[in-house]
Every structure is written in C-alpha cells, then in structure tokens.
C-alpha cells in the first residue's frame, strides 16, 4: 500500500531507534506527550516503546475524543436512544462507552433501542432519508478531523429540508486541550510532571494546519513536532524532539509535510465555521470544565440541533470513584497506578473511557503492553 508500507519499514525503524538512543543524553529524562489517540494506538500496536531508550518516555495525552467524552453526555445519548421512534447513529468506538449505572449504547440496543453503527456521517443522513417515519440522530464526536464531515452533512440536511434528522454535537478542539494540560498546576510546577515536548496530531493538523501550534511552542517553550500516522513518522518525530531539546530549541516542526501545510485545509475550515460556533465552556472527562474548547450548532441550523429538539439537559456526572482516567489523561498517572486496572476495570467491563476506547491509555496498555509487567516482574 503506497504511502503506508514505506512508513512501516522495520529496518528503517531500527536505524531511527538507534539514532534516538545515540542522541538521548544519558542522565537526562525526556518526557514526550503524544496527544493524538491514533498515535497512542500506533505506539502500542507496533511496540515502539520497546525501541526507545529508558530515558525517553511516552506519555499518552487526551487526544482520544471517546476518552474525554464525559459520562453526562453519554447519558444524554442513551436518553435520546431510548426515546421511542428514534434511530441513533453512532461511530463504532462509542458503542461500549459506559455511562451512568454501567449503561451503554450497546446495552440499550440489546434492550430494544434502535442504535446503529455507521462508518461515515453520511450514512446517518442516508438512514434519515430511508426512514422518513423515524427521528434519526447522529451522535457526533471528534476533534478537528471529524468535525468537517459533520459540517458537510449538516449543510446537506438543511439543503434537503430533512426534518427527521438532527445532530448531537460533541466536537472538541485540540489547541484548547493542549493549553489545558500545559496550564494545569501539576504541569506548571517544575518537578511534578515534567512534560518536555509534544508530538502533534496527524490528521487534526491536516485540517487546522501547523500555525496554531506556534503559540504553544512560544508561550510554554516546549517543542512540537507534528507527526504522521505511521510508526516511522512517530519514531522520526521522537528523534526530532530529542534533537530540539538537546539544542535548547522550542519550535514547531512538521514531520507530516506530505499532508500538513501551515494553513491547513481552508475549505474544511470554512465549512466548519459556517455551521458551528464555540461553546463558552464544555466539560471534558478528566480535564473538568474547559473554556472555549468545544463547538455547538449555530442558530441558522438550530432546527437540526438534537440538544434543542430533544431538550437535552446538561448532566454533570462524577466519574466512578477510584477511576483514575482523569489523571491518566493528563499524563499524571499510568494505567498500572489505578486501583481498578485489570481488576474491576478490563476491556470486557470498562469502568472508564480510557479502557473502553482502543486508544485509551489503559486499553492500549492492557491489550498490547501488559506483558511488560510480567516480563519485568
């Protein structure tokens, strides 16, 4: 597969890994956060951490929109799904996310609610057209990569005057999340959680461009390297970050230049700006209330806003006690630090989003990395 296989070449990986080992200064610790869930998955799936020297550590950030979706919003979606006459369309990742009382969309489906998995936002629009007697709701989540497709179907719904269709919008913004992590008290204080640099998200960046990261590099003096999705991209980005840190630089570098430009995808940005606006504040699981971090549907499209159509009340539901998702999402704790990990909380019975989403730090560690505990034991 072109543009995929070349970036997965094992021999080259070993070379880059050797370079990282050679350049990481002994006695110095490099704590690098990969923000994007897709990167977490790539790191786990390819066992990239095995190739890194001990003083280069990867911290898994909150770039998984499933992981940061608060329980209250899951409960809202379940409530919508339980409404008679509704077909709730959702991406596969959301089906097993636990809401309150261990309910989930999958369980609600077993109870008889019409919950359908879609691969594409466009599928939900088609379902609405095929079922004029039903109310079809699309459960929209995602960072800036996934937002433009939702914007496209929202415009299409209006153009088609489709009155049995609405969108439950939970789109969130990457720069706000990064700022929130960098500003958290634990991170700002030196000596608590040192966070030396970021691997910038791959496909979010194709949409927003590399410019938005300049602010972070300057303001917080941390290097950012935007990395492509394949394992060689990630390894290369790690090498580039190590170099920047050694040289005392804090710049935005773009490793994913084959798909990311400074400006990003203007067309996609324009479509999003046409239909969405910023929410003043939005709750993120694990990060709490984050200002100007999420989107809602603009007034001219209010007719297709599920929150208005179903009169959705904001619910603030606390996480399960002892669940450390919040700390893990910020890179403060590791999955093994959580009392529930591997006992009450497993992929079969997830207590929190970090375990239910395949990219969540806990699921990734459980699924791919648990053996390290036993090998080291």
């Amino acid at each position, binding site marked *: 597969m072109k543009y995929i296989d070349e970036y997965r070449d094992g021999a080259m990986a070993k070379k880059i890994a050797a370079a990282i080992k050679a350049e990481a200064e002994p006695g110095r610790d490099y704590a690098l956060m990969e923000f994007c*869930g897709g990167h977490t998955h790539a790191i786990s799936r390819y066992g990239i951490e095995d190739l890194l020297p001990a003083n280069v550590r990867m911290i898994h950030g909150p770039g998984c929109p499933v992981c940061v979706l608060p329980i209250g919003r899951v409960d809202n979606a379940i409530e919508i799904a339980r409404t008679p006459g509704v077909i709730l369309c959702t991406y596969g990742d959301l089906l097993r996310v636990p809401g309150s009382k261990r309910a989930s969309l999958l369980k609600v489906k077993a109870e008889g609610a019409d919950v359908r998995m879609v691969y594409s936002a466009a599928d939900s629009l088609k379902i609405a057209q095929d079922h004029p007697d039903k109310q079809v709701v699309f459960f929209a989540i995602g960072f800036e990569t996934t937002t433009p*497709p939702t914007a496209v179907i929202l415009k299409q719904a209006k153009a088609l005057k489709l009155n049995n269709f609405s969108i439950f919008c939970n789109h969130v913004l990457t720069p706000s999340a990064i700022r929130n992590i960098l500003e958290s008290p634990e991170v700002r204080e030196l000596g608590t959680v040192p966070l030396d640099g970021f691997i910038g*998200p791959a496909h979010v960046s194709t949409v927003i461009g590399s410019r938005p990261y300049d602010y972070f590099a300057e303001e917080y003096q941390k290097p950012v390297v935007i990395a492509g999705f394949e394992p060689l991209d990630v390894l290369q980005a790690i090498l580039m970050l190590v170099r920047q840190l050694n040289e005392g630089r804090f710049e935005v570098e773009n490793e994913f*230049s084959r*798909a990311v430009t400074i400006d990003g995808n203007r067309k996609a940005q324009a479509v999003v700006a046409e239909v969405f606006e910023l929410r003043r504040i939005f709750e993120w699981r694990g990060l709490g209330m984050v200002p100007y971090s999420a989107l809602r549907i603009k007034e001219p499209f209010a007719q297709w806003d599920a929150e208005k159509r179903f009169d959705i009340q904001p619910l603030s539901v606390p996480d399960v006690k002892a669940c450390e998702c919040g700390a893990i999402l910020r890179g403060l704790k590791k999955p093994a630090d959580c009392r529930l990990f591997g006992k009450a909380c497993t992929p079969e019975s997830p207590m929190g989003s970090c375990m239910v989403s395949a990219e969540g730090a806990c699921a990734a560690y459980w699924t791919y990395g648990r053996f390290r505990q036993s090998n080291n034991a």
Partner: protein
Amino acid sequence: MCLALPAMVKELLPDDQAVVLLGGVSKEVSVALVEDVQPGDYVIVHVGYALSKVDAAEAEKTLALFAQMSATAAQ
C-alpha cells in the same frame, strides 16, 4: 478520531464523490472537503471523507529525511 489512510483516487463521481483504491480494495468516499482532485492523486480519507491530498514530493522528502537523520546520528 485520527484513523485516516492515504488512498488513490481512481475515478471521480458526480455530487462530490469519488472512488478510491487502497491495497486492491475500492470504496466510494466524499471529496466535498478537498479541491482539485484528479484520478491518480492520493488523498487522506477519514470516516468516508477525503480530508487532504498527499503531496508526493513531500512524501519522498520525508522518506529521504528518515534515512538521512538516522545516518547522521551518533556524532
């Protein structure tokens, strides 16, 4: 929500749609979010939508950079 793949545009269809090819598998996706797409171009596809074009020249440069950077290591 990052899973996105580079696929080759095989054929353009009406209504901002296109057929893309990946490893011998073809799928219909939307190209409503990209401009100037021609058969033979590679696009990054995410949840059924092409989000950007892959710049072939930059792709080559990146691969060359891998080789170069790892070669100059340990100096």
